[in-house]
């Protein structure tokens, strides 16, 4: 299945739109986590549009790549990326976190086709992603690549390191993990709450191939993804190691007034704050309703089946 193959400029512009949608949806819900989605928006936009081989019109296509959002609180970003990849209508993002919406507060496999596994309880996604990658290999399909996104604070969870150890032990090279290395978590800066340094050395010592990149420089981002998938069997011979990309990022990136403030981990913007954020992203709206209107009708418009069981 072809990816969208956007240019770097197109990716930059789309990441801006993604931020717009994330913030507007969270504001509408009066609930949600804007901080992580804005720090991961650039590199995950690049992944979803240009690297992830999926079929939005058939979310259960067996040969697809898999994406697991291990830090499930960044769900608004996951949903916005899916909408812009064509899984469902963009306007449906405005139902985020409302009763009976498929867009649960944290991703739910049984609610939304295209979510590979439910997440939200931190530290679990990488093990599940590794199980998928192993399963692809056991099926004789190592060309299926499994991508997993983790928060840096999430790396404080013990289960993560069990998965890191396991994937290296099995040389699971169709597994690629991205870490949103924004140094911010609910209670403050990661280095103060419970430091995870030296992160590159830790992954290296555990047997992973480590790539570091500026998570907001789209040239660097695409170069990092190219390097990462270049080591997977999907591009020929696998490198024999799982790969991690440590994306250096800034929480709330794109909204300078609010950047790098850990308090924005899980606080929804009020209307006036949303207007400042959208203005700083370059949108000239008079009211939040104008931002919502720009996103279109709120009908789902996606896959209705329940092949996820």
């Amino acid at each position, binding site marked *: 299945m072809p990816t969208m193959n956007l240019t770097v400029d197109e990716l930059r512009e789309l990441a801006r739109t993604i931020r717009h949608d994330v913030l507007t949806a969270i504001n509408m819900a009066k609930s949600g986590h804007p901080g992580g989605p804005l720090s991961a928006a650039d590199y995950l936009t690049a992944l979803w549009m240009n690297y992830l081989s999926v079929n939005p019109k058939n979310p259960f296509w*067996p040969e697809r790549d*898999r994406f697991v959002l291990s830090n499930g609180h960044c769900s608004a970003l996951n949903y916005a990326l899916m909408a812009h990849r064509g899984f469902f209508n963009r306007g449906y993002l405005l139902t985020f976190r409302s009763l009976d919406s498929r867009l649960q507060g944290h991703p*739910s*496999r*049984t609610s939304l086709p295209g979510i*590979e*596994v*439910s*997440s*939200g*309880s931190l*530290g*679990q*996604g990488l*093990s*599940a*992603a*590794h*199980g*998928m*990658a*192993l*399963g*692809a290999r*056991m*099926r004789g399909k190592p060309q299926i690549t499994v991508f997993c996104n983790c928060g840096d604070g999430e790396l404080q969870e*013990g*289960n993560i390191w*069990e*998965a890191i*150890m*396991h994937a290296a*032990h099995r040389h699971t090279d169709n597994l690629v993990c991205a870490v949103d290395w924004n140094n911010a978590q609910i209670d403050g800066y990661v280095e103060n709450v419970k430091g995870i340094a030296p992160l590159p050395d830790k992954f290296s010592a555990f047997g992973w191939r480590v790539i570091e990149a500026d998570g907001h420089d789209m040239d660097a981002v695409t170069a990092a993804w190219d390097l990462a998938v270049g080591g997977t069997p999907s591009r020929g011979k696998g490198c024999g190691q799982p790969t991690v990309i440590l994306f250096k990022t800034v929480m709330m990136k794109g909204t300078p007034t609010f950047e790098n403030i850990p308090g924005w981990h899980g606080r929804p913007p009020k209307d006036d704050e949303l207007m400042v954020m959208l203005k700083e992203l370059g949108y000239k709206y008079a009211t939040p309703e104008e931002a919502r209107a720009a996103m279109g009708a709120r009908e789902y418009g996606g896959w209705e089946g329940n092949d*996820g*069981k």
Partner: protein
Amino acid sequence: MASKIEYLNGVLPSSEWKMKLTREAYGEMLVELGRVNENIVVLDADLAESTYTKFFRAEFPERFVECGIAEQDMMNTAGGLSTMGFIPFLSSYAIFLTGRAWDQARNTVDYSRLNVKIAAAHGGISVGQDGCSHQSMEDLSNMLSLVNMTVMVPADYWETRKMMEWIPTHEGPLYFRLGREKVPTVTSEATPFTPYHTLPVIGGGDGVFISTGLMTSRAVQAAEMLAEEGVFSRVLHVPMLKPLNVDEICAAARECGAVVTMEEHSIYGGLGSLICRVLAENDVRVPVRVVAIPDMYLMSGPPEELLGRAALTGENGAERMREVLGVR
């Protein structure tokens, strides 16, 4: 007098029981299933010798995933494998699978409704000498509260084999509990396992023992003791606690007029709790006694003596039945 007892469904009188391991039946059946179903994969967490997944490991090393001492990782790795169309069976001890890895079982496996089969060895307190840290009297409660989870407890070796034949045809998360010790073969090769139903073990109308797992053998012993006194109690074995066949439970209670439940689990949240709620909500107003592990941690000791310490015995079952029947 005991000769008047009506043993049903191929169930044997206690004089004919042999002692066999449920976990060995599990290990044997994994291999048999693996030979005919290439989707069967098995995971273990450094206990393959003990859980008997070693048989599968020997024959299908390419479908065996050793996870090391990392039950949380194992639970979710199994979840991931299931999304690729495999039927993962994962094994460790009940306390670790349903304790340490409960969050993974709940949030990844059960909430996602993944097709993962959790085979928990060393359920209950009959683990014995290893002591409290390795005993599990909370696992059924932990698993019964998971929305999509099917929960089963086989009585013995033969029923474990029968359950294993059926499990791959079941879609969704499933938990079943095995023991450490050899337990009596109450059932025989001829005994059916019928999913979603209870198993009538002994006929009778003077109260009913409703039991699960190892304790079904104690319920049969209790019924045999009472028969010597001219009291013929029914024994209904519950291999599947969730979903529970409420109609069969209520009918038996109504027909027999008194209930004694028997399980190797805490008084909180296991079979006894379940039966009491079901009877109450269905207006089945019969006296009930619950034979289960009282609110206490057990200790090291020979399994039979531990079961005695918790009063998980045929004698206690019989005494509770006399109590509810008013025949003491």
